[in-house]
């Protein structure tokens, strides 16, 4: 069933004059509901002095809010996410290849490991890593939250990336494997020279959307481990700039949305290239198995 955008609508008849009037009325009623909600929010915010100019002005006028809090927070978020991605990719690739192994004694334990890694909440992994690093490793307490957050993210996303790798290889046309076999390649060679290079193109969109999940999950460390990422800055800013909690939360949320929309747009562009590119097989993995 085609979406209502572009092309004739499928779920309803092409509206005539009466239907159009009815739709306009429904639109107005909906607008009234939205306006009522917005009015309540603004009214309450006004009562609680959250609309006062001095609560919002620092974000526009005071450069220190950005240089001392928001930009370092954003940088920490991006750093942790990039580090986690870079480390999770090889781990996931290794596990993904093991998931596709022909020998059962490699495949079965890996599958169990990957399933376990995905079944455990990331927050619990971060908490465990934080405590384990505190006890077993001699890491500077200031950088321990970063270690804990990245390790937790790598364990979880390594398992997710493994699943994406497997799906990427399985999405390739079976002729690729058959052809490699026909020219006399062995299992490892088929994987390394034929399947993996093409699978990487196929799974780039899924990997990019998984990066959105990684970026979002860094915020967990901010609240539970006092990791200095973007969300952590909310309390610091509102303590320094006169309890402007709502303004801070809004700005931080918008920064996250902008960062993630950037990644999503990138994913969409890569996907359309993978689908329509002349060199590609047209196989694409778009579903991320874990959207948290």
């Amino acid at each position: 069933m085609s979406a209502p955008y572009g092309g004739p609508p499928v779920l309803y008849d092409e509206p005539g004059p009466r239907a159009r009037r009815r739709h306009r009325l429904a639109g107005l009623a909906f607008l009234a509901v939205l306006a009522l909600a917005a009015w309540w929010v603004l009214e309450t915010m006004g009562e609680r002095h959250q609309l006062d100019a001095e609560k919002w002005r620092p974000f526009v006028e005071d450069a220190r809010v950005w240089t001392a809090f928001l930009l370092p927070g954003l940088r920490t978020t991006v750093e942790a996410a990039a580090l986690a991605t870079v480390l999770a990719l090889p781990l996931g690739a290794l596990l993904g290849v093991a998931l596709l192994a022909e020998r059962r004694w490699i495949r079965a334990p890996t599958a169990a490991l990957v399933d376990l890694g995905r079944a455990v909440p990331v927050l619990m992994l971060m908490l465990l890593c934080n405590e384990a690093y505190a006890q077993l490793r001699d890491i500077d307490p200031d950088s321990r939250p970063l270690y804990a957050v990245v390790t937790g993210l790598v364990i979880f996303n390594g398992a997710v990336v493994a699943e994406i790798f497997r799906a990427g290889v399985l999405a390739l046309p079976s002729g690729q494997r058959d052809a490699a076999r026909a020219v006399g390649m062995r299992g490892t060679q088929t994987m390394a020279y034929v399947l993996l290079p093409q699978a990487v193109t196929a799974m780039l969109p899924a990997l990019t959307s998984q990066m959105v999940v990684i970026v979002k999950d860094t915020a967990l460390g901010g609240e539970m481990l006092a990791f200095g990422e973007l969300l952590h800055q909310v309390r610091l800013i509102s303590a320094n700039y006169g309890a402007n909690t709502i303004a801070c939360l809004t700005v931080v949320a918008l920064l996250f949305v902008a960062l993630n929309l950037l990644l999503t747009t990138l994913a969409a562009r890569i996907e359309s290239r993978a689908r329509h590119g002349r060199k590609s097989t047209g196989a694409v993995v778009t579903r991320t198995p874990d959207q948290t």
Partner: protein
Amino acid sequence: MPGFLDPERYDLLAAFGVTVRLALWSAAGALVWGTVLAALRVSPVPLMRTFGTVYVNVVRNIPLAVIIVGMSLGLHQTMGVALGGGTAKDTGFRLAALGLAGYTATFVCESLRSGINSVPVGQAEAARALGLGFRQVLTLVVLPQAFRTVVTPLATVLMSLTKNTTVASTIGVAEASLLMKEMIENESDAIFAVFAVFALGFVCLTLPTALVLGRVSRRVAVRR
């Protein structure tokens, strides 16, 4: 039996009970709100479509932790919304459930929308030929078939939701991960054993969901 399993010291069952209740309430909220959002996104009224699209694209790109903290710091402490009052514990639980539902609804909406797209065009065309309006086409013909095709994706969403309930610990809801945090701080000689117990708990919560919904999915699948 290791000392930390003593129910007198740590009430594991109560903590997992909160996790389960949180997951159930937010799942109910997310399914209802997600269905409404999906209906808005395919409706003939442009404003409703715009609202649905903007809501989904904004909310699912905000980290859940920001939403949950915003519920507590922003909605509750700053705006004074108590959601029916009661003790601080009850309020925290309700705020977390509301945040989880509002966030998970975006994923329910997206799954459902792909389900709607997988229903053959002829189904809606036949319904319209019989003279059904948009609401009837959607609720009587298209959505029932869409739901049956997306049981598996919805199961994945619900399992993620179950794991995401741990984020409620950021505002002090006494669910499993908050107890785990307390326990690994106190039982420093058994942190991996403590973690294993909690991991097992979550596997026990998510695995049956996957198995049951996998069977349901096969049973209700629309044969075409």
